[in-house]
């Protein structure tokens, strides 16, 4: 259904179309409109799910963990401090191989306290064994939620769908939200074989001694790496059903560019506009958008950047003490001139002028903080 909606509402409508059975969340700016809209849908009789008011994010994550372990599709959303508070549970969910989809309205982390957008929060779980997807537009973010449920339930790895807080949660845009019937054509019912069931009384969450733990963790790693193939496949299936493209990575601009700017999330909109202006001035520049951060699509990135000599990685996060996180990931797979640019922390505005500065600074140091 084509409509004009605030980003948060669009996500709530999309999640509702995926027919979860249990929704539980704790409010935190800027995720609040998502969970409020879900409450409204429930109150108006437009949703079937049980809506559980959680008293903290640790509780919200635990509640959806219990529900998904029962074989009931579940959902939660959070941001920043909330994500940090539920981190223990998120690691536990992934380790237990429970499918789940969560939304993170990306926001800066304390201290100092700051409610505006950057991507530091979700980076806290990059080692936890979660699928991590980043959307550039509201439409893409909505579509990624549907894809995430399908993939997560297939590979038994939970998925976090990321959107820039305020920038995408509070913007009002035209979107096409599929109805429950359309989603059902793509997303089958959730059937968790090892679910809690009195007719098949299994134990979940046993403790693993050194004799067993190692291979269990190794398998989570390997399955996460291999989930890339499933994600690719499901992106193709998604296009067949919904007629919209989703990709692990997307290249924009000059195919033979010496300099390529790499980024994730809504900032790509600004980058592409700046790049258009640079190209009009005769500069050769390309943009690589990364949608799947975990699993990290190594082959696709190497291929897309094969002609590039200089890579400017724009991170809205930083591994304090080293450099931008996406930059580190790229350095791991590419032996090219990679410069880490950290922008936008704490909601600091990123302008086209700043992107142009990035473009000209790419031969200088290894790490540049570009505040203005």
């Amino acid at each position: 259904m084509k409509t004009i909606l605030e980003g948060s509402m669009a996500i709530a409508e999309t999640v509702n179309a995926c027919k979860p059975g249990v929704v539980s969340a704790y409010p935190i700016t800027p995720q609040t409109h998502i969970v409020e809209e879900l409450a409204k849908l429930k109150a108006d009789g437009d949703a079937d799910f049980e809506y559980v008011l959680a008293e903290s994010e640790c509780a919200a994550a635990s509640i959806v963990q219990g529900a998904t372990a029962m074989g009931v599709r579940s959902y939660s959303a959070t941001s920043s401090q909330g994500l940090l508070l539920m981190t223990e549970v998120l690691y536990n969910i992934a380790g237990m191989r429970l499918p789940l989809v969560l939304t993170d309205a990306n926001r800066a982390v304390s201290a100092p306290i700051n409610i505006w957008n950057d991507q530091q929060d979700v980076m806290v779980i990059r080692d936890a064994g979660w699928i991590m997807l980043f959307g550039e537009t509201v439409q893409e973010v909505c579509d990624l939620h549907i894809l995430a449920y399908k993939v997560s339930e297939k590979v038994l790895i939970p998925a976090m769908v990321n959107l820039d807080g305020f920038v995408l949660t509070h913007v009002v845009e035209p979107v096409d939200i599929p109805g429950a019937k359309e989603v059902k054509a793509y997303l089958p019912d959730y059937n968790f074989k090892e679910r809690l069931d009195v007719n098949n009384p299994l134990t979940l969450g046993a403790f693993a001694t050194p004799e067993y733990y190692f291979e269990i963790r190794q398998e989570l790693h390997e399955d996460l790496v291999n989930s890339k193939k499933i994600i690719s496949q499901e992106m193709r299936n998604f296009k067949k059903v919904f007629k919209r493209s989703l990709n692990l990575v997307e290249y924009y601009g000059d195919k033979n560019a010496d300099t390529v700017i790499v980024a994730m999330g809504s900032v790509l909109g600004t980058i592409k506009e700046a790049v258009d202006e640079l190209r009009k001035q005769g500069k050769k520049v390309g943009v690589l958008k990364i949608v799947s951060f975990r699993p990290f699509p190594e082959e696709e990135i190497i291929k897309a950047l094969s002609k590039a000599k200089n890579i400017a990685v724009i991170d809205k996060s930083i591994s304090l003490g080293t450099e931008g996180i996406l930059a580190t990931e790229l350095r791991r797979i590419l032996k090219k001139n990679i410069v880490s640019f950290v922008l936008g922390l704490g909601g600091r505005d990123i302008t086209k002028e700043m992107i142009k500065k990035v473009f000209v600074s790419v031969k200088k140091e290894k790490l540049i903080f570009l505040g203005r």
Partner: protein
Amino acid sequence: MKLPLSVKPGTTSKVKTGNWRPLEYPEIDHEKCIGCAMCERACPEGICFSTGLKNKSGKTFFEKDLDYCKGCGLCEHVCPVQAIIMKEEKK
């Protein structure tokens, strides 16, 4: 995903904790037993049980499974008629 993370029910019964017993084992006098089931309730391993067999007084007497008994002595302690005595075990 190949490694099953869920565990099938009741599988600790493979572990015969009877080898934990340090010195004593419980001996049950079938004729004294009145079938009150206090020993069954008190047994931490849950292996004191009704045999379903009757003694000369017509009471269904209880027994214990020494494969699992850790020798705690609670059965001797709770038995109201002293039908259970902890005896020295010859290894």
